[in-house]
């Protein structure tokens, strides 16, 4: 069996994630998940814990890589194992303090519970993003979270120019803002 080569530099990893996210993440998954699973399962965790920890580690790695804040001094797999070890240690300490608490299936539910009142809008936005049409949702997430360049977004969504894709992006952002505004305005009137 031919194994795919490791991502050895942050720039290579960033380029791979932006060019074909699914393929790059699948490669990382194949290379690093067995290492993290072995560590978590060897230190009192279950296979499900290993999966949760690994997903958290990949989210951290993704955001650092596409945000240009990642410096790799070892392979990406070693880096993911390091993050996974820290996250699992942190989770074990948390469970020791609160033994009855199980993690919710969706970690954002936990974030929402712990959020102070000022964060309400942020979590409301989360719901309104889900209610946008698929096209708007994809464009906004591609640009603002996945940090894909507008040239790529234009090509992926069949826009003739970057300018058309830019205008569409702002129209989608306006729709989202108006939905959130309307909701908060009606809440203010209701209560």
């Amino acid at each position, binding site marked *: 069996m031919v194994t795919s080569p490791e991502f050895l530099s942050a720039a290579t990893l960033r380029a791979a994630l932006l060019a074909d996210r699914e393929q790059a993440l699948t490669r990382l998954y194949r290379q690093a*998940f067995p290492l993290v699973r072995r560590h978590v399962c060897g230190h009192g965790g279950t296979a499900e814990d290993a999966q949760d920890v690994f997903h958290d580690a990949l989210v951290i790695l993704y955001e650092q890589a596409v945000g240009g804040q990642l410096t790799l001094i070892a392979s990406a797999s070693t880096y993911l194992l390091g993050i996974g070890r820290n996250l699992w240690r942190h989770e074990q300490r948390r469970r020791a303090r609160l033994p009855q608490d199980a993690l919710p299936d969706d970690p954002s539910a936990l974030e929402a519970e712990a959020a102070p009142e000022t964060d309400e*809008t*942020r979590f409301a936005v*989360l719901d309104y993003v889900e209610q946008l049409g698929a096209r708007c949702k994809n464009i906004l997430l591609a640009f603002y*979270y*996945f940090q894909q360049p507008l040239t790529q977004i234009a090509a992926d969504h069949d826009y003739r120019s970057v300018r058309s894709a830019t205008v569409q992006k*702002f129209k989608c*952002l306006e729709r989202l*803002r108006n939905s*959130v505004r309307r909701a908060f305005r009606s809440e203010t009137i209701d209560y």
Partner: protein
Amino acid sequence: MRPELERLRLIEQQLLNSSTALPAEDWQLRLLLDGELAADTAAQQQLYQGLRLAGRRQLRRELADIHARLYELPASPWARLWQRMKPW
């Protein structure tokens, strides 16, 4: 672009610190002259934070799909048939 969209772009350039953002003193002047700009900027910042949460949720879904593809065995034809017959 419509003026409303241009306003979103102006605020975005400041918030995302883009190369086309206004110099700090010009931005401060705009804030003084435009009574709604500060509130609109804060609202737009909240949108970006919400989009970040939504992006994370989307990424986790994609990771769960990859996990299922790599590590979960596809159901056998008998298991699939059993699932279809199950209601009775």
